[in-house]
């Protein structure tokens, strides 16, 4: 029983980061009809940003988060300008290919800069563990979960309750009409990609700190699983993507703990195939492309 609960807890940690990355990806897709294949690179940029911040600036965890997110945001804005803005609104595979190209260039660029081997990210928290009854969780894991929770709640609040969140939803539905009521759609595009980059970057920082490593290709697997979350959940409700992300993390942890850890990475794709065969529009619906 304790093993089970511990695995569930660990799974929620990772799952919360899947959810955060998936939300950013899903946001850009819903608002701009663009599949940003470079999104995992925002995640990777966050981790390297954390590394750079720790090395040159500060070891304070908040500072590291800010530094990592800033690097991810910068990368995001560049990608938006070069590979998203010029192709927004075109036949959907074109942004898919364009952002794939930028993503690959970024990955290999990072490899050039930092080398092909993972870079050590020094820990910034004492490895203190807390016990919740029979379960234990480290401080870093709590920071990961906490950051993810804050980001998800902030996004939800932004989308539902703020003027620009409303404008973003309007642009997602009818960009022409939104523009006709004074919304600068180019700005919303930058804003949305920027938010997605900040979120993915934050997730990258926490994962980089949790596993004490940053690697040019770390975005790939994480990104793919987050894409799977979006596909399985459908993009109609952001809560759906959050839930699926958490569930995926838990499912992976359980498979890893009870069956075999080598198949962990295949869980996501297995689920994807099964769900898509029965519900091609995702569990909770949408994808109007």
């Amino acid at each position, binding site marked *: 029983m304790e093993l089970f609960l511990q695995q569930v807890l660990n799974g929620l940690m990772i799952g919360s980061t899947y959810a955060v990355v998936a939300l950013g990806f899903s946001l850009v897709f819903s608002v701009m009809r663009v599949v940003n294949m470079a999104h995992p690179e925002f995640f990777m940029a966050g981790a390297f940003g954390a590394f750079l911040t720790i090395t040159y600036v500060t070891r304070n965890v908040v500072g590291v988060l800010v530094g990592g997110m800033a690097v991810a945001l910068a990368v995001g804005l560049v990608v938006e300008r070069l590979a998203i803005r010029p192709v927004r609104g075109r036949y959907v595979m074109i942004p898919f290919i364009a952002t794939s190209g930028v993503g690959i260039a970024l990955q290999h660029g990072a490899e050039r800069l930092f080398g092909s081997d993972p870079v050590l990210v020094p820990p910034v928290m004492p490895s203190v563990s807390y016990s919740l009854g029979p379960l234990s969780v480290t401080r870093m894991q709590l920071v990961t979960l906490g950051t993810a929770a804050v980001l998800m709640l902030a996004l939800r609040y932004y989308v539902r309750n703020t*003027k620009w969140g409303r404008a973003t*939803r*309007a642009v997602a*539905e009818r960009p022409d*009409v939104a*523009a*006709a009521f*004074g919304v600068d759609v180019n700005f919303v595009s930058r804003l949305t990609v920027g938010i997605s980059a900040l979120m993915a970057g934050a997730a990258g920082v926490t994962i980089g700190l949790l596993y004490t490593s940053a690697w040019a290709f770390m975005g790939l697997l994480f990104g793919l699983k987050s894409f799977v979350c979006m596909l399985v959940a459908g993009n109609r409700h952001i809560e759906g993507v959050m839930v699926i992300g958490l569930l995926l993390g838990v499912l992976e942890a359980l498979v890893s703990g009870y069956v075999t850890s080598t198949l962990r990475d295949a869980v996501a794709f297995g689920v994807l195939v099964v769900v898509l065969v029965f519900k091609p529009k995702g569990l909770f619906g949408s994808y109007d492309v």
Partner: protein
Amino acid sequence: MSILLRVTGLQVMYGPVSAVAGVSLEVPEGEIRAILGANGAGKSSTIKAILGLLKARAGTIEFEGRPIHRLPTHRIHRLGIAWVPEGRQLFSTLTVHENLEMGAFARGNGARFHAKLDEVFSLFPRLRERRAQVAGSLSGGEQQMLAIARALMAEPRLLLMDEPSLGLAPKIVQRLFEQIQEINAGGISILMVEQNARQALKIAHYAYLLEVGRLVGEGPSRELEASENVKRVYLGG
């Protein structure tokens, strides 16, 4: 009386085809003017070109004396032009209230917003009842009211209305056009595109006749209503 909107020699292409070929029109301050014509006549394209949603191949568009045909849509709106699109085009996943908030996007959310909201609800009381409902769940007539209300929230000087009667029952259309007159009486100039020429001519001061992208006639509504030609082509005999 000053000319609020002046369009001269407008040409809009859709690929190799001319959607609008050399149309000129004016909307003096305080008037309701109508653009009449069948489907495909180029009426909506004219409206969209005024808004900057379609690029003009040639011609000029001036609002309050300023050329606006090179401006991006969101800036054109902020000069004081609001749109009631064809087919309503509400933000269907947003509530009635949120749609109205989007209408006032360029204006801000302060005290003026609430005052304007009250005004709009007095004009369309049914919307107040449905305020928290998602716009997609409203009936056809209510959606049209919301589309107009949304545009009014922008406190425009000029309202561009594209086929307001589309898909509505005749009794509702009648009441709707009375409301449009009330809006005009409140000081807002209106350029309306309509297939329902009969109703449009009843409330418009002046109208333009469009056929396949070209202007084929214009004049004060009384004259047009009396013209045999117009009666035959646009009013069904």
